[in-house]
């Protein structure tokens, strides 16, 4: 088992045992800035060494995949789950967007098994952050009188912390290139795995605190939190195969499709769709889907990718 997953489980256990362990908020903030930048820089350095033309169809497919997912999930949440429109749209948006840490764990699992991936996968990660959120807001507002603040939304989509740092890191890495990156390499690449482990300890504490929400969320949402990534992983793997990604790249796209956002989406949906109950979306995303993905999901998505590749 990947050591980072054990750090996550340690966090969950600490929380359930009511330990006084607490990761200070400024440290959480610093670790998340580091992870976003490190993922971006690593992708940027490698992206600089290959033609951009080949990346474009895959980038467009990733955006379309992110935007399509809420439209698939919304009717299920409304009709089968009998959830109100606002909650259905909000939960669908969380799944349409992506989880950077799930992606990072995916990269780490693939690296451990010596599975090669395309260097531009961090770019696809950055591109998949916003479309699902925008689709979710559209679904919440369809037929309603409330107007959508497109200017604010566009600003958040590009300049929100996670997209800004990922894209910023990619640009820095691409400009600097493989030779000159050596000066910052020990921090951003050498320490990556250890920092990810610390971050997952904190995520374990946060996810453990959300387990209580699940009692209120009910059986449907708990089942939804497990079945959805399993099915979306298949969709992501099929799209990956269709646009010619390697098995490693396909496994990461499947991981992205199966992951649900807990940084960008909760904040964006809170403002855009305030009537949605955040305990439901955050409970299912952090209490069910995130733990499922980093323990069982990622190996499953690698299995999909290998099976599809034949």
């Amino acid at each position: 088992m990947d050591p980072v997953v054990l750090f996550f489980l340690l966090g969950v256990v600490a929380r359930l045992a009511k330990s006084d362990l607490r990761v200070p908020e400024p440290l959480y903030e610093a670790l998340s800035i580091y992870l976003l930048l490190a993922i971006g820089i690593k992708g940027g350095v490698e992206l600089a060494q290959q033609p951009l033309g080949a990346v474009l169809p895959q980038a467009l497919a990733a955006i379309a995949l992110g935007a399509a997912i809420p439209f698939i999930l919304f009717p299920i949440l409304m009709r089968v789950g009998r959830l109100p429109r606002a909650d259905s749209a909000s939960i669908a948006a969380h799944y349409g967007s992506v989880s950077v840490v799930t992606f990072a764990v995916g990269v780490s699992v693939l690296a451990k098994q010596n599975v090669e991936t395309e260097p531009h996968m961090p770019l696809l990660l950055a591109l998949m952050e916003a479309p699902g959120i925008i689709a979710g807001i559209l679904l919440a507002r369809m037929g309603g009188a409330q107007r959508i603040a497109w200017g604010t939304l566009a600003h958040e989509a590009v300049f929100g912390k996670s997209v800004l740092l990922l894209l910023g890191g990619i640009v820095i890495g691409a400009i600097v290139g493989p030779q000159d990156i050596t000066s910052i390499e020990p921090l951003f690449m050498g320490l990556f795995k250890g920092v990810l482990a610390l971050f997952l300890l904190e995520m374990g504490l946060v996810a453990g605190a959300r387990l209580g929400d699940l009692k209120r969320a009910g059986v449907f949402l708990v089942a939804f939190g497990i079945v959805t990534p399993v099915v979306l992983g298949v969709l992501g793997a099929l799209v990956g195969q269709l646009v010619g990604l390697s098995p490693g790249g396909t496994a990461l796209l499947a991981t992205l499709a199966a992951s649900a956002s807990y940084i960008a989406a909760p904040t964006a949906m809170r403002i855009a769709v305030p009537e949605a109950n955040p305990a439901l979306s955050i409970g299912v995303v952090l209490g069910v889907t995130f733990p499922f993905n980093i323990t069982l999901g990622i190996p499953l998505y690698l299995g999909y990718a290998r099976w599809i590749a034949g």
Partner: protein
Amino acid sequence: MLTHARKLLVIIAEAALEKELVRDARAFGAHGYTLSDVRGGGVHGEREAAWEADRSIEMKVICNESSAERLAQHVLATYAPNFAVTLFVADVGVFRPQKF
């Protein structure tokens, strides 16, 4: 020492509302504000400030009675129905009335 009567309006809310609250405070005539990150619990559950969607802020606004009343009414009508919001008002004395 001579002081001048003003109102201190304290708004404790989800951090997602920060930009809106700052904009509203200015729009309703406040000359300034002070923000701090806080944590606590209430009818919406515990808010421990552990990560993005779990943060809360405390905003202090010292202004004249009319501004405080209009800002409080606006916050209660606009945000309180859907967000975790607590607000209260107190009488304070300030030394430099032109600042508030």
